[in-house]
């Protein structure tokens, strides 16, 4: 009988760090058979890392494993690969579909586990020549679909399905495995319509009734209340709180999710700045076709000298806004800077009109990894504004002024406390935080009037974070440069910004002063309208 009382899954002080940055700290929880566990937290709170550990993903091993214990049925397990996790009865449905579009639902559900018939050829060539037993295949697939309790045509090609049905096919595939005991659903409802989401929630309840435990990751807090038994709220790699779903509420969860100290610490430190009436940048009906961060219809006004924050959950489009304005992705709409319209899709025109952009993709867009720090910092200013150049033959020859470049690099190395061996060091050899500072220095060297900073603290450690934010704040307050900062971390926005705009579903769902309590922003993020938040 003792077997029964042991929880299906138990995590004991699990921790994990990437290159010295702790991303998970002392995570403990248990999960019983048939229990539905809701897992919520902002982006970067450590949810995916936790699931990667549970699922034995390669990234975990490659970055040095994890600390603590994972127990299944009271026995410690260490999965070396996702296959081990599958064998132990853990199934996972990812945000992205992994289905073969040209195959039917049934074929996808039982892919590579098809029931087989032996044929004459099998005698010669062995099991490779077995044929597929279509009847049993159908039957097994329909069994899985029935178990899930949804209506899904097993003969339909995946390519012809609506997204919701694709999602069901994925889940059916996981539960068609006879050994399945724990199912992890990573934001399964993000792509579903309301009705489909409802069906899915019903399906989850069905599974739970059959004794399958479910870990349900979502940003839609209502769904947590609807379907989960208990909720774990994560923030900064820790479990902040474990709640009974019946006894909690959306505002409580939202508050726990975003607020560090929900006391007025952030707002009191920063005196309310009166917004200037001058509008520097006005954005009308902006759309941006950036994969994963589609912007649909953004209207925004940025005041002179303001520090505007743009927040929101991942994939809602906040990152698409600066990328679209700077012309890095196809975009449309109207962008007016100081009364002058800026042609969209023309990076040079933006830079020429003194807009600078620090990209969220440091290594991909932000840096010349194989070149020296000098090059990285001086390059845009040299190309756009002809700085750091010596001119010969009446300007015909524009020679790189090594001395000036070194001087400006050293200046920023000192100012931003960049840790490096010299200004000649290659950018790829620096740590993430220092690379980010190089990106900032690069933008500062342009001396912009308007600065877009996208996810400046992504993937850098706490100390560097504080320095980067401090540098931005000073740049804004001392030089009066208008800054628009896009960040997934609400707390960081509340520390720095005057106003914060929240983006949901490719549009601004509301702009509030930073001094407002974080629940209000949390409400905006999870899709409650502005009125309700107010």
């Amino acid at each position, binding site marked *: 009988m003792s077997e029964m009382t042991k929880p299906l899954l138990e995590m004991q002080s699990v921790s994990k760090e990437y290159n010295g940055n702790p991303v998970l700290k002392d995570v403990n929880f248990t999960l019983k058979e048939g229990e539905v566990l809701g897992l919520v937290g902002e982006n970067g709170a450590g949810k995916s890392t936790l699931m990667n550990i549970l699922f034995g993903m390669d990234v975990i091993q490659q970055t040095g494993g994890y600390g603590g214990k994972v127990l299944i049925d009271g026995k410690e397990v260490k999965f070396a690969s996702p296959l081990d996790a599958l064998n132990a009865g853990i199934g996972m449905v990812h945000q992205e579909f992994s289905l073969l579009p040209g195959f039917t639902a049934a074929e996808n559900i039982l892919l590579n586990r098809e029931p087989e018939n032996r044929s004459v050829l099998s005698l010669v060539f062995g099991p490779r020549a077995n044929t597929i037993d279509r009847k049993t295949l159908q039957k097994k697939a329909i069994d899985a679909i029935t178990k899930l309790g949804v209506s899904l045509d097993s003969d339909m090609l995946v390519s012809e399905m609506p997204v919701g049905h694709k999602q069901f096919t994925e889940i059916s595939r996981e539960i068609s495995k006879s050994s399945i005991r724990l199912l992890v659903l990573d934001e399964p409802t993000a792509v579903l319509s309301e009705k489909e989401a409802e069906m899915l929630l019903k399906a989850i309840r069905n599974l739970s009734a059959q004794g399958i435990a479910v870990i349900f990751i979502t940003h839609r807090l209502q769904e947590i209340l609807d379907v989960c038994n208990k909720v774990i709220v994560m923030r900064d790699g820790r479990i902040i709180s474990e709640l009974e779903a019946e006894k909690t509420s959306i505002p409580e969860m939202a508050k726990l999710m975003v607020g560090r100290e929900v006391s007025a610490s952030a707002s009191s430190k920063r005196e309310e700045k009166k917004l200037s009436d001058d509008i520097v940048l006005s954005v009308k009906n902006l759309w941006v076709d950036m994969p994963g961060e589609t912007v649909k219809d953004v209207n925004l006004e940025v005041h002179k000298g303001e520090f505007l924050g743009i927040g929101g959950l991942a994939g809602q489009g906040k990152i698409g806004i600066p990328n679209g304005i*700077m012309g*890095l992705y196809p975009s449309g709409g109207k962008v007016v800077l100081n009364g002058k319209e800026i042609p969209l899709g023309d*990076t*040079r025109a*933006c*830079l*020429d009109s003194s807009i600078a*952009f620090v*990209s969220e993709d440091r290594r*991909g*867009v*932000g*840096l*010349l*990894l*194989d*070149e020296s720090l000098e*090059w990285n910092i001086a*390059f*845009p200013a*040299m*190309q*756009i504004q*002809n700085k750091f*150049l010596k001119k010969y033959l009446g300007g015909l*020859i*524009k*020679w*790189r002024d090594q001395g000036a470049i070194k001087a400006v690099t050293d200046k920023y190395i000192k100012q931003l406390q960049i840790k490096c061996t010299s200004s000649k060091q290659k950018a790829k050899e620096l740590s993430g935080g220092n690379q980010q500072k190089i990106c900032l220095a690069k933008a500062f060297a342009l001396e912009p009037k308007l600065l877009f900073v996208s996810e400046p603290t992504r993937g850098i450690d706490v100390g560097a974070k504080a320095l980067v934010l401090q540098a931005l704040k000073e740049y804004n307050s001392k030089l009066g440069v208008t800054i628009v900062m896009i960040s997934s971390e609400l707390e960081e926005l509340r520390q720095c910004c005057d106003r914060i705009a929240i983006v949901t579903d490719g549009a601004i769902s509301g702009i509030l002063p930073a001094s407002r309590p974080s629940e209000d922003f949390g409400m905006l993020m999870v899709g409650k309208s502005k009125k309700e938040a107010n």
Partner: protein
Amino acid sequence: MEKVRSFLASFGLPRLIIAGFLLLLFIVAPFVGIRVGASISDTLARFGMNSIMVLAMVPMIHSGCGLNFGLPLGIISGLLGATLSIETGVTGPLSFLLAILYSTPFALIFGWGYGKLLNRVKGSEMMIATYVGFSSVAFMSIMWLILPYSSPTMVWGYSGSGLRTTISTDGFYSQILHNFLCLKVGTIEISFGEILFFALFAFIIWAFLHTKTGTAMTAVGSNPIFARASGISVDRQRTLSVIMSTWLGALGILCYQQGYGFIQLYQGPMYMAMPAVSAILIGGASVNKASIPNVIIGTILYQGIVTMTPSVMNNIIHTDMSEVLRIIVSNGMILYALTRKSGASR
């Protein structure tokens, strides 16, 4: 041990092996009855002939277009310039200048078109470039027959039309750079003319890479998205680099012809890119990083091997191994370089 390893990493193991092999050849040479002085003179002469074609690799590598396997296109521009210069009947040093002058517009136009083509096939430039080279050679094989050249030194004797496969540059610009400032020290013959000619263009390229535009070109090669986000037109920089490479290819073949004494038409340019590509790779360049020292070291090592192996090997084993070895070295080197994507050695 750590020191040895870091030295190996910075100098590059293949370069070390090749250099060691070359040194070995020079040590062995006197014992098998080969005059070292003559060998060194030969190596230097070949350096003078080939170095500019190796230099032609540099701009395209810098802009991220990879190795210029389409060098035959530049060579064809050079051939057009050479034949047009001879057609005018001007002799002596002036014919060399004229050949450079005539080949320039062809190089610019061909390079521009070639650059536009490479901009459409980002990511597989080198394969496309190889076939650009091959097909342009095939096309020109027809054109050499059809084009209305009439100079008796160049056309077929029996028909009076169509160019011959090899045309002597004797009386025009044969050895023109080689004999300029040629110094004899004992048995070693050093042609400062050729070396200065190379130095001039190497300096121009070096200087160009220190200008604003040159910096932009390097940045495009290093990270095109970074360059684009900094307001640089990536396509324009790439096209410019291809034009430069093509023009240097044209110059390179003219330099080669003056040293070799003949203009080779038809299938001549077909595999000309391989030794140049191989040389710069031996010199320590990679697919996306190259410097002038890479060009110099690479050309000396590659041409050294090509000069020394035939004579030494033939004398040791009395079989002609030279061609086999040359092919192993050049193709092996290209293969090696293409399979690794790390930075260049210094």
